[in-house]
């Protein structure tokens, strides 16, 4: 069970003077149950890549398959949910409940089961019962975003792809969203997060891919990433590398605060011990 991308090349506006290669010979595979990050500068082809995961774009050459099916097959839409950038634009329901129910209804859920899925998606994102029957357009920007995300989570698909879900969210909502994604992931859902600033997400990911101008330039674990990647390092990794350069004997492949804390205290303690 996986999403497999084999030698994918894609060009926009083929056959015109605006033609542009946005993905060049990209191969990767994402297993069921993984938490994956896809990073890269703006314009590096991240959104173009994820549009292939549920068949919205067809490869110019190469293949994309989901659990063995070609990605543009209709059934794939019931396995891979994609949340695009600026998802608050897609709201249209009369009430928050109706809007979130749109996806699950399209996938055939009715009655109690539908209610349950809508409620649990909204609850997971910290949205209280009092807004269920409110028009989504009366909510704040951050809440609208969360409702739109709930609209994708509520369908309970096997793979959930989110394109820049954190950009423009405040710290509180970021935390809520991240823990919701981790919760889903712990129950077996594959979570694929696209972000041009992925350094602060490294500690939750199983695997990381980095795109640069349409080319896949890195694929591996977060630990390998901070060891090998030339750029886009988390601040905490930069700090550890700098400490190393200054002669402290700390590890340079650390990317979360807790590890950094214990590593620094270990080194400080040994220093103390030596001094005594």
């Amino acid at each position, binding site marked *: 069970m996986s999403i497999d991308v084999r030698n994918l090349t894609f060009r926009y506006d083929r056959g*015109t*003077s605006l033609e542009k290669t946005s993905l060049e010979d990209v191969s990767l595979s994402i297993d069921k149950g993984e938490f994956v990050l896809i990073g890269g500068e703006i314009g590096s082809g991240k959104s173009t890549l994820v549009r292939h995961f549920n068949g*919205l774009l067809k490869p110019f050459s190469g293949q994309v398959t989901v659990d063995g099916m070609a990605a543009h097959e209709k059934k794939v839409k*019931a396995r891979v949910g994609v949340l695009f950038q600026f998802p608050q*634009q897609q709201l*249209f329901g009369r009430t928050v409940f109706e809007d979130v129910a749109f996806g699950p209804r*399209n996938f055939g859920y009715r009655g109690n089961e539908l209610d349950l899925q809508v409620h649990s998606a909204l609850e997971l994102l910290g949205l209280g019962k009092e807004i269920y029957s409110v028009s989504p357009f009366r909510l704040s920007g951050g809440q609208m975003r969360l409702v739109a995300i709930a609209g*994708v989570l509520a369908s309970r698909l096997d793979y959930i792809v989110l394109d820049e879900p954190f950009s423009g969210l405040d710290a509180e909502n970021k935390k809520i969203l991240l823990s919701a994604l981790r919760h889903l992931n712990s129950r077996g859902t594959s979570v694929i997060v696209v972000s041009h600033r992925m350094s602060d997400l490294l500690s939750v990911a199983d695997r990381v891919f980095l795109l640069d101008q349409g080319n896949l330039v890195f694929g591996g674990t977060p630990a390998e990433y901070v060891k090998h990647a030339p750029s886009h390092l988390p601040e905490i990794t930069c700090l550890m590398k700098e400490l190393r350069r200054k002669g402290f004997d700390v590890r340079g492949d650390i990317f979360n605060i807790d590890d950094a804390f214990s590593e620094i205290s270990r080194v400080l303690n040994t220093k103390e011990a030596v001094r005594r």
Partner: protein
Amino acid sequence: MNTLFFRYVPGNSIVHRLDPRVKIAGMLIASISIFISSSLREMAVVALVFFLLALISSISVRVILSAVRPMLMFLGIIFILQLFLTEGNPLFSLVGLDATYEGLALGVLMSMRFLFLLMFASLLTATTAPSLMTTGIEKMLRPLPLKRLGISSFDLATMMFLSLHFVPLLYGSFSHLRDAQVSRGLDMARNPFKAVYSLSVPMVRTAFISAEEVAVAMESRCYQGVNRSSLNEPVMQKNDLAALLVFGIVMFLLV
């Protein structure tokens, strides 16, 4: 995704380099010819002229198709209405309605008219940079006594420019929205009513929001609407005039 919808596609052909005023006037001539042509033979001439121009401007078929495709349904409705609602010799009958030979001819003619209008318009937008288009329109409007109506030719040209500018932009948001709803399981073919509802509500909202954003952006840059100059002032040259003359004469003689 259809991002080429009435968009400018840079190029270096003769048509690209023509003065925008010539192309706009040419577009007017073409529209008039299209509407006065009343037989299939005259339509064929219009088609021929169009394909020659498209060939010279080396515009890809995709660009033209992308303008036409979304309108096919509209063209189809025009055709069917003409086919059934025109009096004449019966051709066949369907659920109590008679299709006629005259209706068939008229239906083909009417839908061809709209088709070629669209195609000429997309040729114009594809070969003319939006800023040049505005300057062109503005200069053509300047002799008119618009002041007395309380608007300047600059205002009018800016309005037209903004409309032109919004077409690909709105189409972009439309494709974005469609992708989003399709990803939420919307099946546009099986559920057209749901499709219209789930796309039109956010579409209208987006249109209003982006219109307001543009207005705020213009105001915050002190847009006054009077006597703006432009970076690229088009200068009418002899060959521009000659091209217009030739095009006008050809169209009127043929049609």
